[in-house]
């Protein structure tokens, strides 16, 4: 289309967009031309009054055609001109930024890789792009992937960069060329940006400096046939043996229908395997996989789909994530207001679990408590904790059948703060002294509950009913509900479990709460909420409203060897512990980094009461793959209480361990450990199709243009008229546009044809 336009109007549309239209004829010439045109038109118009064989209409048509001809001639005589600002040859610079990342090695559907364009068009040679540019501009070259740098020789390109960071590349080029007249930047890339900076950060300074960016997009937008595993979201840390539920998003292009296995591996050991049906072309489908990590330490869990026949890119079939598996023994306080078999069977369910220390505090008589699994004789010596420091030692709290009036107001507030401030987890169990029946309505703790409390069940015997428990759709995807059962058998397993009983009618949840288990009761108008949870402040709270889950172990319909009860409680308590913060927590901005690239180490520091500490001395001990230890101090960020940061650049390839220790006044507040790997990743192979929208956006927002290899030939001319830098004003004639002459010929031919048709010649 542009070619046709250029043939008719001499110049490409871009020139018209950039230029200002004017008539070059002098003032007197304009007058004479105007007078002549008017006279000619008048004479021509008088023709409509001539007598002869023609009708007035026919004469009118012919006169109009002739008037059009006269006007066109007059327009040409007025010397229409386009005033264009063009860059001065060899006075301006153009930065050429070349994508040197691995994705440039992809061949897409072509025989040659994307990088072949660089060899063909950017190497000096006959008719190459770089030659055309060189004629008008002084060129400066940059290569970019994860980092960008100036190059002088294309031999420095090896297309092996682990990431594509467009923003930093644009920044570098702008800064390096800020001292010279810069006409624009040319970005040669597939646009598959994998950097962690938003591109806007780089575009705004370019807009301010009025530097247009011209993008040349390489590769296909869609790579097919191909299967790709999407980004995986997993908890950063879990307790050993915890069931982890993960949604794996799989997208296919050009593979057609069918099913593929999703394999989850930990160090070459298959943890689980699920088969999923592929979706329509480009439609992502979600595979839910559940697995347990039973080895403490940093685990690299790999989710992969075996390469399928004909696949273009195989390296986007697998994703690897780092999960810190804690092998600690973590403490949960279970406070029960009376002897109940829930205590016995819950203890039994987790007693073999080396990672759970379920501390029992059971009221056996007024002011008399039974303490079990305590660490020492002083623990809970006076009953339920009366200070935050004492309560906050536990990472989760389970409240059984105990009335609210047992606690002081301070203790009730403390329980609420345990969740909201300390970030602990709180589980409420059903029982005659629980929920509304236990007088919890109106207390500070009621707000923490994920369920709504009604009026206490009345009558001398209170409320009592049976419920058959079943998972909700949300529950089927939750680790607490899996019962260590294959995913497709979970619902069936729940159906096989005997009904339980309730004494607390609970049918409503708070806004934002999620119900995982529900139960039908013949004595309730709507379903009983059996298990629900919500986030509250920094922690989470859950309600398990039945009173005898031990029946899942004891009931005659449950085989003795059945592990449902045990699995439920192990996973429930583990889930409660997930994400509960420690006084000192270490985190990183990413789990894989390229050697030499900065990594941000962050520590959240609090004291034993979980009050943020801003005057701590925080030190990171980084153990390198070769065993060397580097110590890096962290500084308080000021913006946020208790947050300390520093940067670290790994130099070796391999796995690193980061231990962050916080001290105040010589007292150790705590420590946290995390891990990362330094080395190349596979980021470049994911979502590796040409990102046309991003490239167009860069060009549009900076006043540049976007091109493909097919349209790139006009790039030098375009920069000449749209670029910044040292420019001059150029007048380009339009009177000799072929379009004017064609129009004249057309009018003349039209009149002649009309005459012939009407027999007027």
């Amino acid at each position, binding site marked *: 289309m542009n070619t046709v336009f250029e043939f008719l109007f001499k110049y490409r549309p871009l020139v018209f967009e950039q230029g200002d239209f004017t008539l070059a004829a002098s003032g007197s010439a304009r007058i004479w031309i105007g007078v002549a045109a008017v006279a000619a038109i008048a004479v021509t118009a008088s023709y409509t009054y001539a007598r002869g064989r023609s009708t007035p209409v026919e004469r009118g048509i012919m006169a109009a055609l002739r008037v059009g001809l006269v006007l066109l001639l007059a327009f040409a005589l007025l010397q229409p001109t386009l005033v264009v600002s063009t860059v001065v040859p060899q006075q301006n610079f153009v930065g050429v930024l070349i994508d040197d990342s691995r994705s440039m090695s992809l061949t897409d559907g072509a025989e040659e890789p994307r990088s072949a364009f660089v060899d063909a068009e950017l190497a000096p040679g006959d008719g190459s792009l770089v030659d055309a540019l060189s004629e008008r501009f002084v060129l400066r070259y940059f290569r970019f992937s994860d980092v960008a740098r100036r190059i002088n020789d294309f031999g420095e390109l090896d297309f092996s960069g682990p990431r594509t960071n467009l923003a930093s590349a644009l920044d570098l080029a702008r800064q390096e060329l800020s001292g010279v007249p810069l006409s624009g930047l040319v970005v040669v890339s597939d646009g598959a940006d994998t950097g962690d900076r938003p591109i806007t950060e780089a575009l705004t300074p370019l807009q301010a400096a009025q530097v247009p960016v011209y993008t040349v997009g390489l590769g296909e937008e869609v790579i097919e046939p191909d299967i790709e595993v999407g980004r995986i979201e997993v908890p950063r840390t879990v307790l050993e043996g915890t069931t982890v539920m993960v949604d794996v998003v799989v997208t296919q292009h050009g593979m057609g229908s069918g099913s593929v296995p999703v394999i989850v591996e930990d160090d070459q050991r298959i943890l689980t395997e699920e088969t999923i049906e592929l979706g329509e072309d480009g439609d992502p489908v979600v595979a839910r996989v559940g697995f347990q990590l039973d080895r403490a330490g940093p685990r690299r869990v790999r989710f992969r789909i075996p390469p399928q026949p004909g696949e273009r890119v195989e390296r986007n079939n697998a994703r690897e994530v780092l999960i810190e598996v804690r092998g600690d023994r973590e403490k949960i306080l279970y406070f029960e207001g009376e002897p109940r078999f829930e205590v016995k069977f819950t203890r039994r369910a987790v007693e073999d679990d080396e990672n759970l220390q379920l501390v029992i505090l059971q009221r056996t008589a007024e002011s008399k408590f039974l303490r079990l699994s305590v660490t020492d004789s002083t623990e809970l010596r006076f009953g339920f904790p009366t200070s935050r420091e004492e309560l906050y030692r536990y990472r989760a709290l389970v409240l059984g059948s105990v009335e609210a009036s047992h606690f002081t107001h301070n203790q009730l507030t403390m329980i609420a703060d345990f969740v909201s401030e300390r970030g602990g987890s709180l589980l409420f169990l059903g029982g005659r002294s629980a929920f509304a029946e236990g007088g919890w309505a109106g207390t500070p703790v009621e707000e923490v509950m994920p369920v709504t409390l009604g009026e206490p069940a009345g009558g001398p015997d209170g409320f009592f009913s049976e419920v058959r428990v079943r998972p909700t759709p949300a529950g089927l995807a939750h680790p607490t509900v899996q019962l260590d059962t294959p995913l497709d058998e979970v619902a069936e397993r729940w159906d096989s479990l005997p009904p*339980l009983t309730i004494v607390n009618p609970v049918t409503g949840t708070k806004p934002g709460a999620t119900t995982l288990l529900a139960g039908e009761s013949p004595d309730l108008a709507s379903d009983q909420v059996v298990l629900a949870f919500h986030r509250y402040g920094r922690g989470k709270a859950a309600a398990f409203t039945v009173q005898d889950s031990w029946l899942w172990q004891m009931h005659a319909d449950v085989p003795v060897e059945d592990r449902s009860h045990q699995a439920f409680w192990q996973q429930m308590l583990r889930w409660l512990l997930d994400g509960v913060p420690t006084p000192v927590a270490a985190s990183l901005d990413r789990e894989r980094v390229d050697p030499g690239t900065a990594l941000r180490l962050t520590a959240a520091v609090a004291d034993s009461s979980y009050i943020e500490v801003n005057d701590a001395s925080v030190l990171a001990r980084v153990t390198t793959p070769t065993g060397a230890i580097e110590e890096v101090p962290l500084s308080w960020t000021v913006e946020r209480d208790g947050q300390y940061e520093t940067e670290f650049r790994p130099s070796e390839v391999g796995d690193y361990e980061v231990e962050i220790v916080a001290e105040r006044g010589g007292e150790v507040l705590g420590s946290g450990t995390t891990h990362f790997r330094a080395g190349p990743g596979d980021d470049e192979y994911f979502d590796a199709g040409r990102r046309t929208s991003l490239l167009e956006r860069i060009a549009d927002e900076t006043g540049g243009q976007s091109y493909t290899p097919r349209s790139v030939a006009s790039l030098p001319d375009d920069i000449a008229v749209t670029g910044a830098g040292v420019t001059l004003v150029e007048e380009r004639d339009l009177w000799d546009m072929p379009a004017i002459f064609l129009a004249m010929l057309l009018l003349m031919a039209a009149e002649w044809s009309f005459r012939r048709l009407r027999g007027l010649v």
Partner: protein
Amino acid sequence: MQRILRAAFVSLVPVALVGLGAPALVSNGDGEDSGPAAAAPTDLAVDERPGRYPFYWTRAIYSSGSSGGFYGWGRRESWATDFPKSDRQFVTVLKRLVEIDVWDGENAVRLDDPILRHFPLLYMVEVGYMDLGDSEVEGLRSYLEAGGFLIVDDFWGAREWAVFQENMGRVLPDKPIVDLPLEHPIFSTFYDIEEVKQVPARGRGIPGGPPAAECRGCEPTVRGIFDDDGRLMVVINWNTDLGDAWEWAEDPRYPLEYSTYAYQMGANMIVYAMSH
């Protein structure tokens, strides 16, 4: 503590003497006949659904043999000794001593009745006369393996021990019966018990009456059976009769020493069984 217990006993005397108002929750399993009318369970249980209360004091109904002796004459089955008065009084006092929500009535269940699994704690007496059928053996075994807890009481001497041992050998083969030392938590879970006492039957414990022991040279012993994970699942009170002390604690002639011990031991066993 003895004063408290005495007050508890005195206050419950009227209840104990009337002793008839409490309902019963009784198994109507498909097993053998549960015995003559003197100790026959009633059917008041139809209005009660297991689970309403956290705890039901549950007595095991088992088959007795015909090896002679008092129970072999057919007057009543050995499982029903002291039933139901002992059970009712024990529950009444237990509620005053322990913060526990207990079903007020007696609850006798057959060993082969599936409903037994709703009651994770089971009391069994006079086991020297037991003669378990295969279904009872299977029922008790699966009950214990699933997590049930059994308290055995009121049997005396070597002959009765042998009968019990033979039957338990069928229930839990390869599981040894071992002495429980006083250091075991069951002696300190609620009350601190420093000595295992020989609790006599009502007539024997009264000063001036026959010897406390029902057999010569019988030493009171508390023994236990543990599961493969080292958890106590059976506690055996041999050469002692806790049930009689629970039954007759309100009798001013019955020595407080024995009734105190019996209730303390009972409370300990229950609190232990509900938490371990």
